[in-house]
């Protein structure tokens, strides 16, 4: 999954001379928290609702005036992403730096923005339930051919796989959660069990070997 698949294209942007109060109004109006700041067609920084609130807070040592220019309070230099970056790379960057967005730059131009919300959408797409389906939870040895064997068994029974989610476990095992297009999951689980697969869900399947 690439950034271009999850980013928002043509994002709202402002120039550094915009007043803090106007940037704030824009955020409220568009229901956004991050605005890239562009100067002479080049990304100059990012201003977030937090930047604005901290800069203008009466608790701060030298509070900025709402009339001050965004260029004075924006975050810069800015970490960016490329449309062809994988989503996991962007996620790693945002997680490490504890930041909420990455402007997306292509040919030196701002083409999009990816925020935590977009990454949550991506997570939902990967883990969510998009079609009526039953759930199989399998533990596989991490070696060649295991998934193929599993898929062949399902194909033999004409079971349609709607989604596969996998994650590594300790002891060189893989956990696989499959959403498959059938209400009758236990007979499938039984067949998998009989074929030597470790079925985590549905539980209490008695194997016949």
């Amino acid at each position, binding site marked *: 999954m690439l950034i271009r698949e999850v980013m928002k294209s043509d994002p709202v942007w402002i120039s550094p001379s915009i007043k803090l109060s106007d940037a704030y109004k824009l955020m409220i109006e568009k229901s956004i928290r991050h605005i890239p700041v562009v100067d002479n067609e080049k990304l100059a920084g990012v201003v977030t609702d937090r930047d604005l609130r901290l800069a203008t807070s009466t608790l701060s040592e030298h509070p900025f005036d709402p009339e001050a220019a965004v260029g004075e309070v924006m975050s810069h230099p800015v970490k960016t992403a490329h449309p062809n970056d994988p989503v996991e790379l962007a996620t790693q960057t945002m997680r490490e730096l504890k930041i909420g967005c990455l402007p997306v730059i292509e040919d030196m131009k701002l083409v999009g923005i990816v925020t935590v919300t977009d990454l949550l959408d991506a997570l939902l797409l990967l883990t969510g339930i998009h079609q*009526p389906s039953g*759930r199989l939870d399998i533990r596989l040895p991490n070696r060649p051919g295991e998934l193929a064997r599993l898929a062949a068994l399902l194909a033999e029974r004409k079971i349609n796989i709607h989604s596969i989610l996998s994650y590594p476990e300790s002891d060189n095992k893989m956990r696989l959660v499959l959403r498959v*297009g*059938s*209400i*009758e*999951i*236990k007979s499938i689980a039984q067949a998998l069990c009989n074929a030597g697969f470790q079925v985590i869900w549905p539980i209490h399947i008695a194997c016949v070997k």
Partner: protein
Amino acid sequence: MADSYSMCKIIYHPGYCKYDLGPGHPFDPRRVEMVLDLLKEYGYLKEPIKPDIVQPNDLLSIHDQTYINVVEAASRGEKILNIEDYGLGTIDNPVSLGMAVGARYQAGGTLLGARLLIEKKAEKVLQLGGGFHHARRRMAEGFCIYNDVALAIKEMTNAGWHVAYLDMDVHHGDGVQEIFYDAENVMTISIHESGEYLFPGTGWLNELGKGMGRSLKLNLPLEPFTEGESYIEVLDGILPKALSWFKPDAIVVQAGADAHFSDPLADLLLTTQDFEKYFRRIIRLTDEYCRGKALFTLGGGYSLTAAPRIWTILYMVLLNIDIPAELPLSWKERWEKKIGKQLPDFLHDVYPAFDPVQRKEEISRNNRELVHRLLDAVIADWL
């Protein structure tokens, strides 16, 4: 009270049996034959009213024309391109000859049930079929082709009624919920095993309806291995509050029997005693909050040794018949031969029905929290 029971009508048509998805398919027409034969053996079978078959065009209030055409053509044996797009020709919904005719007889039965209530010809109706709650506007799903329940609810709302729908099937009533998701005159309440574990994967607490239907679609996704005590506690925590606030003109109950502990498709642990207790509860709540009108349909229930007993008990509760202890020997022998399984000696389950569940307390606690979370979410809209 005697009046109310004589105002209970039974609906059935031999045409229901045409809804046969093939040998080995869990949706086995013999389940209902077993009920009828058992009632006959006990001497309690009242002659059921035979419904008319629903014509394909009468389904347009619920289903798309294209979908209806596809189902009817496939049922006649015609080849359809991309039939999987309509949820047919799948492992759960294989194409079988005459399936549409069976589905339309079943839909006719549930529709007749709605009409008997509307025309005041009955107070309670037991439709010995139907309950195809997964069927979508343009898709078959989970053994269901035509959504008879939605058709009957629509008939009632067309008469100006507010309708409550209680879905006791162990699977989420996703088709019915989706069809009425923004309807202000239909409240749906589905209690089921959580979609985290069970088909179809939906029916979460946060599915509350939209627009004018907001806070009228309620879901109680229970943990696997929930027992009857907790099941009833959860329903008791929601149902009286929901019905007393919504004040429906009738309640439609999809009385699926697959929450039984012996069901091969799911993981809840109700006993026949729990079902009886809850059927009686529903009738009391119907008389209290739903102007006394209830339409019961069947639904899921894939244990041939349990589902027929549960629906026989439902029949007896509705007709105020004392529940006999034993199963007639002749019935038992006859059906053991036919289904190739041993049937129990008693109509009710024998306790202890299953091994104790170690996580029982934790499961009950989690389920109890569902009630609080659901009420928190809707209570502001219910004032």
